[in-house]
């Protein structure tokens, strides 16, 4: 299977199963497009007619180009077959029972009252609560006990707003650091915060202990303050931006993401990206809102058309900024064509419910943060482990081949079947497909590959 598209002045041919990427001229683009369903003679004849006015297109030359396509096919770089389905369960079976990442819901409460919050202002449709040290400690012990030979363990302090329970965050990090060496583990912590409670203590701690910090900022002040308001209805932009700037400046190059959400209020989110850049941030992420059908923040069909265009313009902006010597990263355009995940990872699906779980403030386990509060998805708790084996089995079986719609999608080895939570919330099944999300994902991958191509060719 191949995917052909034109973007940024490039004619790109992606060979889906080998991962090969070819940049071709329009003649080769057409030849490859006809290759599987036409004979050599028919293709050469059609091309000779189509490009009759071009001196550089001759019959011998067309035959030579056709032969190059044949050679690429024979070397496995074009039209490579999908022989991976039998391997789909391999990785999860091999690592069955191994947990390597936990999302600790350290605070089911928040000091902001954002209408669009998928976690219903941090409460996850339940009561306000904070995690005690004892529960957090047990969660870390559970992770170590169930991590097998996996050395790097990821723990995300999430909420709600985790800094509303900052003392426990600090205690848990101290505890983890005190035991990681004896267990031959390395904790990688992440903190996701709305920024209101950032102070010098938080900055010192986060920059010392957190492998990554995710800072919530929607971009332009008027956009950010449309949703990200406190309980008195006041916008938070003016209060958090200087704090984020101080934190990032002091971070000394360690990873962070300035993470925004775009909604029906700002499908033109590139303006928010530009605002982030103007504020001095250069590790950026903007995510489409996740909300219930009919929610006022939901992106409409018209919005999605705007968003598609914005993604293309974002790719162009990245290449322009490269030229200016002011490169920035966009989370969804980070693609390493020469490295990146192996095929096992690419087909085994999101690790939610198996290698990754969320822990509530009272110690219950859920497949991921987006399922918290939906009782039927409760997997167990951090004392007993996973007891709801039936639900866990659904997630274990949720690989790219479990989604019938993915079979004919060229992007399946880049998304691994997509987000189980988005699939469930839009179709009622974790093996469903969130089609609007897929459309955006495919566009992002086209843009990401184009940027990578331009950079590798040195045209940026």
């Amino acid at each position, binding site marked *: 299977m191949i995917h052909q598209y034109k973007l940024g002045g490039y004619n790109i041919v992606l060979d889906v*199963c*080998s*991962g090969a*990427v070819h*940049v*071709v*001229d329009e*003649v*080769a683009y057409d030849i490859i497009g006809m290759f599987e369903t036409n004979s050599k003679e028919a293709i050469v004849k059609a091309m000779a007619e189509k490009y009759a006015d071009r001196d550089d297109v001759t019959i011998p030359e067309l035959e030579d*180009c056709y032969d190059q*396509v044949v050679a*690429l096919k024979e070397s*496995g770089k074009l039209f*490579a077959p999908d*022989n991976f389905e039998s391997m789909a369960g391999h*990785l999860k079976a091999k690592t069955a029972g*191994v947990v390597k*990442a936990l*999302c600790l819901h350290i605070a089911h409460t928040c000091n902001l009252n954002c209408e669009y919050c998928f976690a219903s202002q941090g409460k996850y449709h339940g009561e306000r609560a904070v995690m005690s040290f004892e529960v957090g400690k047990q969660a870390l012990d559970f992770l170590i006990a169930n991590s097998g030979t*996996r050395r*790097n363990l*990821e723990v*995300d302090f*999430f909420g709600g707003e985790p800094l509303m329970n900052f003392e426990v965050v600090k205690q848990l990090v101290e505890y983890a650091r005190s035991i990681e060496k004896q267990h031959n583990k390395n904790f990688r912590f*992440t903190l*996701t915060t709305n920024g209101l409670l950032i102070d010098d203590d938080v900055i010192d701690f986060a920059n010392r202990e957190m*492998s*990554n910090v*995710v800072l919530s900022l929607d971009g332009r002040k008027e956009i950010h303050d449309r949703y990200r308001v406190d309980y008195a209805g006041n916008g938070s932009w003016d209060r958090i931006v200087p704090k984020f700037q101080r934190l990032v400046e002091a971070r000394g190059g360690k990873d962070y*993401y300035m993470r925004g959400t775009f909604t029906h209020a700002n499908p033109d989110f590139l303006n928010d990206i530009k605002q982030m850049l103007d504020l001095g941030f250069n590790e950026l*992420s903007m*995510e*489409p809102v*996740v909300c219930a059908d009919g929610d006022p923040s939901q992106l409409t069909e018209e919005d999605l058309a705007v968003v598609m265009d914005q993604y293309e313009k974002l790719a162009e902006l990245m290449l322009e900024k490269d030229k200016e010597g002011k490169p920035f990263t966009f*989370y*969804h*355009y980070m693609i*390493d*064509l020469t*490295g*990146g*995940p*192996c*095929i*096992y*990872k*690419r087909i085994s699906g999101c690790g939610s419910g198996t290698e*990754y779980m969320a822990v509530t403030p009272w110690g219950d386990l859920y497949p991921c943060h*987006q399922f918290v509060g939906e009782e039927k998805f409760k997997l167990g708790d951090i004392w007993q482990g996973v007891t709801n084996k039936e639900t866990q089995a659904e997630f274990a079986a949720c690989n790219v081949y479990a989604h019938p719609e993915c079979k004919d999608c060229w992007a399946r*080895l*880049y*998304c*691994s*079947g*997509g*987000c*189980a939570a988005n699939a469930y919330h839009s179709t009622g099944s974790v093996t469903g497909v969130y089609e609007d*999300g897929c459309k955006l*994902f495919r566009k992002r991958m086209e843009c990401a590959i184009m940027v990578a191509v331009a950079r*590798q060719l040195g045209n940026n």
Partner: protein
Amino acid sequence: MERIKTIETRNLCDSAKNGGCGECQTSCQSACKTSCGIANQQCENTESK
């Protein structure tokens, strides 16, 4: 004339031979939290490349 330029990429078919160590990051952990993508993740098994 050169009509096809092949970009340097990791061969996914070859990665089947000794991949699958499971050391890589979980999908949206530590990042976006609301959409799944694995393309932007790093392979953490240097021996398999």
